[in-house]
């Protein structure tokens, strides 16, 4: 009998697209034509599990009539099943009776057995009601490879298994895909990038027997292989840039992504990869890399919401880790057992908490703040801007490279300015004059600072002066962060004298000439403690500095580009450590009684005239007296001259190294000194405005990068807290049994090493158990996921559930054979992938053959390849790559491509906005896009990328109007189209046909068909006319995005080709791997 009637099949084929689900993905493979003996795992368990186990299964707490059907002895003992005699079996009677009181499943479950299922159960009982242990829980044994008649067809054993299945149903495989399609498929699957036209042409011509294998090896060796493989791993590892709960603040963890990419690139054995992530910190002398890997344990969602209870959230975090380990490695839905024993699989609630106990040593706080009502001494002073410790600082090769590149850019800019300087007589004269003045200044003030001439003490202005306007966003950006009431001095409002404890103001008369920097030494008053005044003991704590230039009666606020202080608490913005102190800083409590020195570099140097006055104001508690200095010198960042900022770490505010350098350079401005001095001149006077501005911008980035080390979440072990079984998952219930770490009991017997150990087991034991040869699940789970990657559906469709409710695999022997291969090859992932993509099964054409889709709508028999929409990140990558815009740099911090404005409007604590990257980072690959859990980038979300709030084993692809809107209108895709079009127009000799040919070749890896070409050329003609009549529109369209506009192109022509490119980038084929 045929399992799926023809009618059902057709219905699936018709309804699946309407559902928005991708074809009939996950529809089980059809039955073979010949009657096979009933097999419990394949034919019976799914029926029993789906309909009966809920009440007659593993959960003893919910078992009805004390009957279980998942264990044969029990079912037989209760006469539910009498082998060989369906009619004598209670089960048979109950499923066939018409009596609504007796019938099973009971009507109120709304479950009903299909006639085919009833018949199958009858056959099974007649044939002796043989049980099998669940397929996924028996140890992996390598099955023998089936022989197939035609010995020339299989490329490797993968094909044997598939061909054997096809043969049973009398089906033929599909012919191989053409070489262009095949290479595009392989490239998109292995590196997530389309092949270049030259690569396609070369492969098409190379008819050597090793041509295909050579392509595989080339792609497996590419640094982009790791990027492609990382995406599904980051989904299961729930990798994101933010914490996910409530404020959804950033946490620092991008080095973990680099680790994953690198691990795949270096083909780290999967067992090692597993061990490092779960327990790298417990390895002897762990390397930095191994510690970064343990970021995995910290990627659960965390909170710092006010009013959250630490204990409740620790329970949530633990549960998340158990679910993650269950899904990532065991393919098991352990989440069910948080509240009760599993209904379908032999996992118990005790197993859940025993698994959780492995992670009880992971240092983490339930609530990442220090609230008065739930004090948290280790997080004293934390705000919403703080990071989420513990973190490890790790060098990022990306950042090191970037800093180097920026410095080179700066050097080039100084060089360019130098050329202009040399070319102008007037500028030369000004430069000479500056040098003379500088020389004089340095003789008088060898350390680079001139003590300021103080004018009579100001009368304090009525209003409290505002901090200077700065180009950086303010240090304090949230309402929650404003100083708590008790720390704002009560006397401020009533005291308006200049010597108010809250602020201090000084007027100075700087020397005539350039003013580039200020230095301020502040001394606190240490007052005797006054009764009832809290702040008096705090001395100097939070200080804000601002300055105003008063010239000819006009007041102009002075902006600061950068400032630093000698004694400062670190400050943060949304998890990132802020450098510098603009516009203010906190003095460490213990140093509050000391003199606080700070240096302030002006955003733009000002030229002081005779009579000009600068008023400097310091706001803060207990600011008592100040010493002020000025300097005509600014130097910053490029490394040509020593930076005064660089000194700040070791004993600012002395400018000794800079002053010493300048003395030498001014005396002999030649050789290497020449450029250094020119840089100082440029920054100290801003004579070439544009260059100076660029230098300052880059300098800020370079300073921010510092030595290229970035913080990353990692695991530190502490003394484990007590873990109890929480009855019904209730964290407030303390009556549950205390458990120690152990692996699920029913699986522990098969694996030696963990059971019966007389010490507390650790995460390292867990990781070793997961990757032990005897563990039946891990290798099957990984093979299944890799299969999904390469064919669109796993051998078992439910990637997250290999249990009773999951789907028995379409090719169980193939799954086991590959699992055995994987383990015996020492978990060699590249080898596994190579094996699969070398098969003829992989290389088949993917066109739906007439007749085949009715028989096998889900393509589970693999009589063809599957057509598969690209995953979200690669939809982006492909368009940018085709256009020639894609930035192929590997690794590094997350990037910020265009995003609709206001999308983060509903985020607070802190409030934030999205500012798109304006340099080459705009064009980074999709996997580097900043992953905001609560508001994932809409383009990624539209194309089914998961929020990664929870481990996600699969991305069910959908097909929605939102996707069409993104491809049509998102600036990323419009810009890609206009840049793509400009590239096609570069070669001016070509005619339209040839151009279109190139465009297709790049975008789709093939030539246009005649009907496609004629249709598109018609569109081109129409749009040429249209844009020629509307050149303004043409100019606007061809200017979308930050990429440099194409030079020398006629706008209408460019716009018309942009239309063509937009159409092609929107074609189904563009975003599909055939």
């Amino acid at each position, binding site marked *: 009998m045929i399992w799926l009637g023809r009618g059902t099949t057709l219905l699936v084929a018709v309804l699946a697209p309407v559902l928005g689900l991708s074809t009939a993905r996950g529809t089980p493979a059809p039955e073979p034509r010949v009657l096979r003996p009933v097999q419990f795992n394949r034919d019976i368990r799914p029926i029993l599990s789906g309909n009966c186990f809920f009440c007659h299964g593993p959960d003893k707490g919910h078992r009805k009539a004390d009957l279980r059907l998942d264990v044969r002895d029990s079912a037989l003992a209760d006469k539910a099943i009498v082998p060989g005699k369906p009619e004598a079996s209670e089960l048979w009677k109950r499923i066939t009776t018409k009596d609504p009181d007796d019938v099973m499943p009971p009507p109120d479950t709304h479950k009903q057995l299909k006639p085919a299922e009833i018949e199958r159960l009858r056959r099974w009982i007649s044939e002796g009601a043989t049980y099998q242990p669940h397929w996924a829980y028996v140890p992996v044994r390598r099955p023998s490879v089936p022989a197939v008649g035609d010995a020339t067809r299989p490329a490797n054993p993968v094909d044997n298994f598939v061909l054997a299945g096809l043969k049973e149903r009398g089906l033929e495989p599909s012919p191989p895909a053409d070489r262009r399609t095949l290479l595009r498929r392989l490239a998109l699957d292995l590196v997530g990038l389309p092949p270049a036209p030259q690569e396609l042409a070369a492969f098409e011509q190379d008819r050597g027997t090793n041509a295909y294998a050579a392509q595989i090896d080339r792609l497996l060796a590419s640094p982009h292989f790791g990027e492609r493989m990382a995406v599904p791993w980051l989904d299961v590892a729930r990798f994101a840039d933010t914490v996910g709960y409530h404020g959804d603040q950033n946490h620092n963890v991008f080095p973990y992504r680099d680790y994953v990419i690198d691990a795949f690139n270096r083909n780290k054995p999967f067992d090692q990869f597993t061990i490092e992530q779960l327990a790298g910190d417990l390895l002897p002398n762990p390397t930095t890399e191994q510690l970064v890997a343990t970021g995995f344990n910290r990627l659960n969602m965390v909170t710092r919401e006010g009013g959250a209870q630490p204990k409740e959230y620790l329970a949530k975090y633990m549960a998340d880790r158990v679910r993650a380990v269950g899904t990532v490695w065991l393919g098991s839905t352990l989440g069910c057992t948080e509240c009760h024993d599993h209904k379908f699989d032999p996992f118990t609630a005790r197993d859940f908490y025993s698994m959780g106990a492995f992670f009880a040593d992971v240092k983490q706080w339930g609530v990442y703040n220090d609230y008065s009502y739930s004090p948290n001494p280790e997080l004293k002073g934390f705000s919403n801007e703080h990071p989420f410790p513990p973190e490890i600082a790790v060098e990022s090769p990306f950042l090191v490279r970037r800093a180097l590149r920026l410095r080179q850019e700066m050097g080039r800019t100084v060089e360019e300015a130098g050329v202009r300087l040399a070319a102008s007589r007037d500028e030369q004269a000004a430069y000479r004059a500056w040098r003379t003045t500088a020389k004089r200044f340095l003789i008088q003030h060898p350390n680079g600072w001139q003590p300021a001439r103080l004018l009579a003490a100001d009368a304090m202005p009525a209003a409290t002066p505002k901090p200077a306007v700065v180009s950086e966003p303010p240090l304090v950006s949230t309402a929650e962060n404003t100083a708590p009431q008790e720390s704002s001095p009560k006397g401020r409002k009533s005291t308006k004298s200049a010597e108010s404890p809250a602020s201090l103001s000084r007027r100075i008369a700087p020397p005539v000439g350039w003013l580039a920097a200020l230095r301020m030494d502040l001394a606190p008053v240490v007052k005797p403690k006054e009764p009832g005044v809290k702040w008096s003991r705090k001395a100097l704590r939070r200080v804000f500095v601002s300055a105003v230039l008063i010239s000819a009666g006009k007041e102009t606020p002075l902006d600061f580009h950068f400032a630093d202080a000698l004694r400062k608490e670190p400050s943060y913005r949304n998890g990132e450590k802020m450098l510098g102190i603009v516009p203010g800083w906190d003095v460490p409590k213990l140093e509050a009684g000391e003199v606080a020195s700070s240096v302030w570099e002006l955003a733009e140097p000002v030229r002081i005239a005779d009579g000009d006055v600068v008023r400097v104001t310091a706001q803060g508690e207990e600011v008592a007296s100040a010493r002020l200095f000025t300097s005509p010198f600014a130097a910053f960042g490029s490394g040509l001259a020593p930076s005064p900022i660089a000194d700040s770490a070791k004993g600012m505010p002395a400018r000794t190294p800079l002053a010493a350098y300048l003395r030498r350079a001014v005396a002999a401005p030649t050789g290497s000194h020449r450029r250094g001095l020119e840089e100082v001149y440029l920054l100290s006077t801003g004579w070439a405005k544009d260059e100076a501005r660029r230098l300052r911008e880059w300098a800020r980035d370079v300073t921010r990068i510092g030595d290229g080390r970035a913080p990353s979440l990692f695991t530190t072990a502490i003394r484990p807290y007590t873990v109890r079984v929480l009855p019904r998952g209730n964290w407030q219930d303390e009556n549950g049994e205390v458990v120690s770490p152990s692996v699920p009991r029913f699986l522990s017997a098969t694996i030696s090493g963990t059971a019966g150990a007389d010490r507390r087991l650790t995460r390292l034991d867990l990781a070793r158990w997961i990757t032990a040869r005897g563990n039946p699940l891990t290798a099957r789970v990984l093979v299944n996921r890799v299969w999904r990657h390469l064919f669109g559906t796993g051998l078992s469709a439910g990637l997250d559930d290999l249990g009773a409710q999951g789907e028995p695999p379409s090719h169980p022997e193939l799954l086991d054979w590959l699992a055995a291969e994987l383990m015996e090859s020492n978990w060699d992932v590249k080898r596994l992938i190579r094996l699969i993509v070398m098969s003829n099964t992989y290389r088949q054409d993917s066109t739906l053959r007439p007749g085949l889709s009715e028989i096998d709508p889900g393509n589970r028999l693999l009589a063809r390849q599957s057509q598969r929409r690209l995953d979200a990140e690669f939809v982006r990558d492909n368009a940018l790559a085709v256009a020639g815009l894609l930035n192929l740099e590997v690794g590094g911090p997350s990037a910020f491509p265009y995003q609709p*404005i206001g999308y983060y409007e509903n985020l607070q604590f802190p409030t934030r906005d999205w500012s798109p990257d304006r340099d080459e980072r705009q064009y980074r690959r999709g996997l580097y896009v900043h992953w905001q859990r609560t508001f994932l980038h809409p383009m990624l979300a539209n194309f089914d990328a998961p*929020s990664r709030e929870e481990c996600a084993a699969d991305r069910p692809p959908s*097909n929605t109007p939102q996707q069409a809107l993104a491809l049509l209108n998102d600036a990323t895709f419009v810009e890609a189209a206009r840049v793509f079009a400009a590239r096609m127009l570069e070669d001016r000799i070509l005619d339209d046909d040839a151009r279109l040919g190139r465009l297709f070749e790049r975008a789709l890896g093939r030539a246009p068909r005649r009907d496609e070409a004629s249709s598109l050329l018609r569109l081109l003609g129409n749009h040429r006319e249209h844009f020629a009549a509307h050149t303004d529109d043409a100019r606007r369209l061809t200017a979308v995005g930050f990429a440099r506009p194409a030079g020398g192109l006629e706008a209408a022509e460019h716009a018309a080709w942009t239309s063509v490119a937009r159409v092609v980038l929107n074609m189904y084929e563009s975003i599909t791997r055939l």
Partner: protein
Amino acid sequence: MSNSEDAHREDEHRKLQRRTFLAGAGYGLGAIAAESLLARQARAAAIGPRSDRWRGVIEAPHVPRRARRVIHLCMAGAPSQFESFDWKPKLKELHGQPFPESLTRGQQLAQLQNSELRARGPFIGFKKHGQSGQEISELFPRIGTIADDICIIRSMHTEQINHDPAHAFMNAGSILKGRPSMGSWLLYGLGAETDNLPGYVVLVSIGRSSDQPISSRQWSAGFLPSKFQGIQFQSKGDAVHYVASPEGVTAAVQKQIVQEVQKLDGMALAARRDPEIGTRISQYEMAFRMQTSVPELTDLSKEPKHILDAYGIKEPGDGSFASNCLLARRLAERGVRFIQLYHRAWDQHSAIETDMPRAALQTDQACAALIRDLEQRGMLDETLVVWGGEFGRTPMGQGTGRDHHINAFSIWLAGGGIKGGLTWGQTDELGYKYVKDGQEVAVRDVHATMLHLCGIDHKRLTVRFQGLDQRLTGVEEAKVLKGILA
């Protein structure tokens, strides 16, 4: 079932048959090779504009359908029941006194952890309204005018004491991530009534205070396909992401682009036979229609002045709650299945006496206007309106405000088969906890009732995920609140 509904179903059936035929013609018959190019293109064109509108998995209603759509006025941050719908004179008497420990011992607290608990009496009086004499606080005089239309539930309780998980619990019946929200369930079950707009729309008003962040997960489709997710209308930029054509591209040019994509994809469909291509073609159709219909929808300039005044709209389309209420009505008119309005203004841990009246002022008039407007258009009968937050607030004071509270809070429902003028359930005399009198209401009971009014038995709208037949109401027993049905 009404005649029009019969006709509607018949029409749907015809369309389905037509689609089946087309699909069959595409994949079933072996005559493709013999077809001329022209014929292939003709067929692709015929498939192109077909409606791929989602029809829902509920083929026939399980119970008589009272509501066709739902408008959820989500008072995010959780308004105090003591100053809205649950009048507690005894609490007023106890104001400032220690709160009875007998009630609070062992109970969960949020920001009041480790503090001394003192009663905080309501700072505002209540009035009886309408023929039903429902008690409503003086902060909501306009809602008072619809007292006879609404059913107030005072015995709500939830399980989550923090905003983020409490929203998840209210929206999806679970705090686990990846579960579909109620709007997604409803759209999945009932299908869409419009081809031109998303079936589930979310609006978040601006211009509020005391706001708390919310997450787009609250309108996520979870494990359902993303076509069932709520589409958030933005108050800045394009109303729907990417709904505006690129700079320099007119509607006519955009239309040509879309048609060209459809044409080329039609050729691919003929050659490759992947039904996904057919779906994509129709999604482009819908995308293009949205580009026209969204601006039309959000253009409130043609709404008459008396309507704008009734809602209290100062500037049409300003993103205020009032403006969004009017948008909600327009969405309802256009066949959107589930409309959710967030007003994030109610988290009054402090300054409740100034901030809550302000939040009430921002919402009171428009809520009442929406009900009246729907009523006057004959739509209230088939539109279920739900007003409420994610939990309640403590009868104990927290400085100048109230803390989060899970044991009791108030919501109201109206329209779509709800009995108006009814107060359902009660709390103890200090309002600490719901009274177990058979009228206590859990979040899942609201879900079950909502589905029931929409013709769905909550136990029969299930989707298999991670081995379980998941449903909105979860695994605990949920009850339909029969007593509040008209």
